[in-house]
């Protein structure tokens, strides 16, 4: 693989991580959805680049799923949900912005420290990709735990999943990547349909998970 194509792959993976940070500090819901769409576009580009350099035609399918499903259909339906359910425009970030960002930086550093020495036997492009992918996964988790709002938790989960697809596409010749990305799309579709059909707001009068906690543990 030439140096240029390596650089491009790393650039795209780095951009994915960067968008994760953009999402981490975003406290307006509609902007958060747009940034998720942006991340999906970057992912699609990154996977398509992998497909091109690895000459793996099936990865184009994964890229297409990312572009059509994640960058287009999901953001549109999420915007619709936000409008329909009249969710609060701004969302609270538990623990405050500064601590969240600091944790995000810490998790990214952790991923690099853990993954780079662990992947010496793997070729260079996979090393960087895996480290960035792990950071995106951990940032997605962080987003899920620092938001109390169902929609933004779901976005956190989907961003986590973007990291996984990046890792899977980066692993040379890994079979079943397309199947796995389809399987994940099914999960995500379930989530979206779940929010829509079950009308969490109607059932619970809120999409704030703290309010749902009344049924946790014992019924009173």
């Amino acid at each position, binding site marked *: 693989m030439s140096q240029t194509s390596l650089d491009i792959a790393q650039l795209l993976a780095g951009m994915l991580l960067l968008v994760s940070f953009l999402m981490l500090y975003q406290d307006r819901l509609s902007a958060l959805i747009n940034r998720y769409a942006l991340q999906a576009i970057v992912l699609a580009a990154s996977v398509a680049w992998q497909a091109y350099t690895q000459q793996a035609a099936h990865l184009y399918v994964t890229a297409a799923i990312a572009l059509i499903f994640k960058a287009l259909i999901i953001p549109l339906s999420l915007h619709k949900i936000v409008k329909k359910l009249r969710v609060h425009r701004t969302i609270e970030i538990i623990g405050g912005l500064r601590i969240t960002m600091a944790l995000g930086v810490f998790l990214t550093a952790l991923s690099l420290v853990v993954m780079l020495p662990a992947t010496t036997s793997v070729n260079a492009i996979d090393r960087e990709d895996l480290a960035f992918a792990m950071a995106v996964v951990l940032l997605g988790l962080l987003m899920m735990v620092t938001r109390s709002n169902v929609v933004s938790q779901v976005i956190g989960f989907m961003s986590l999943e973007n990291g996984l697809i990046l890792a899977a596409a980066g692993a040379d*010749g890994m079979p079943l990547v397309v199947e796995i990305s389809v399987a994940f799309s099914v999960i995500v579709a379930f989530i979206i349909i779940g929010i829509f059909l079950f009308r969490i707001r109607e059932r619970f009068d809120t999409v704030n998970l703290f309010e749902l906690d009344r049924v946790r543990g014992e019924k009173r």
Partner: protein
Amino acid sequence: MILTDIIVSNAVIAIPAIAALILVFQVDYRRSAQINTIASGVAFVFSLILLMKGKETNDYLFVDDLNIVFIVLSTFIGFTTSIFSASYIDFEIGKGKLNSNNIRFYHAMYQIMMLAMNLALLATNIGLMWVAVEIATLSTVLMVGIYRSSEALEAAWKYFILGSVGIALALFGTILVYTAAEPIIGEGYNSMVWQSLLAHADHFNPRLLNVAFIFLIIGYGTKVGLVPMHAWLPDAHAEGPTPISAVLSGLLLNVALYSILRFKMIIAANSAVISPGPLMILLGLSSVLFSALMLYRRDDIKRLFAYSSIEHMGIITVAFGIGGPIANFAGLLHMTMHSLTKSAIFFCVGHITQVKGTQKIADIRGLTTSHPILGWGLVIGVIAILGFPPLGVFMSEFLLVSSAFAHQPWIAVILAIGLLIALGAMSNRLIGMAFGEPNHSEGAVRASVLPLYIHLLIVLIAGVYLPQIVVISFQNIAKILG
């Protein structure tokens, strides 16, 4: 001849698939319950045929000493639960809690879940297994939410989100294992197949395997219900239909544990990797202690037994974490006994909550007087699960505690403390429910007691006399597990 071979080796996957298709179009709920039972029974028969035939491998499925035990166990409990489910559903329809559309959906999902679990157990490669575990999760999520009450939906949602995160982390671990295998085995399918992974594991990059195992045990451990990733489990057990509680505890937790065991074998085959044992022991012990303490303040009967499932999965994880022939043997035996006993308890609890019209422990009194069959069934089940001699659980717990003592005495001490705390909490609850003056009942239920008695009988017999063939097969597996 070859055709029959193909039929036999794919039957436990194909039968649920066909049954699910038929059930989607079956409107009459009595007929669909029958089809569900028959399909589960036939799948069980085919799993026995697989057991007779022994090892075999094709491109996607394989049978070996380890997974055949899981297959027989899960198709058996799938079968008995489908018998219980028929009478349970009959009552719910009568009460108007579920309509025939719900039931159609429920039965189709039941078979899809059986399909996914069998596929996860038989899959030759780590990618297919991951997809199967995901399907199993989604189908059970849908069944947990079937009552559509806000509690049921919240339980399903929580299970869904936590399960998905677990599964996502497990996938990252799976990708890392592939990345570790790929430079050694080469690109493509072979780097995901269990046998070739195991054969070459010694040459994999150990640091990468370390990271991978952490993701795998956290990911699949969420599905096992290990503390602190257990939060979905009590809700899902309490709010879903009781047959689903029985299969969740009896089967799905085992399937997740099976995947951890398989990965543990790969990790253990590499001498340079940090041993997976201590991490498993830590998670297992914290599950035992935490859930034993949580047992005290439960006042919902299904939640009580859900926490007991967390406790027992913890015990099993400790056993496999310690490793070695005796502890592995104890772990396998305990897993089998727990599956049988806990599903028997849920069969009982299902009918009890139906006759009493409540899940509140405080509102259930004097069962042995008012409903002797259910009451005594519950008493025997709880005595069995608490590990009193001469029942099966006693034997496995005794083996485990003694082998833990030989390994590291403090593990045995913590285990024993957890078991005693659980004993106190459960027997306290049981006495209130089973004895004393009976209180008001909602009505009679046509209970199907056959599955209950069969399970309890097996547990009793296993405690007194374990057939030689079972002992030998468990010893073989214990050896493979290392």
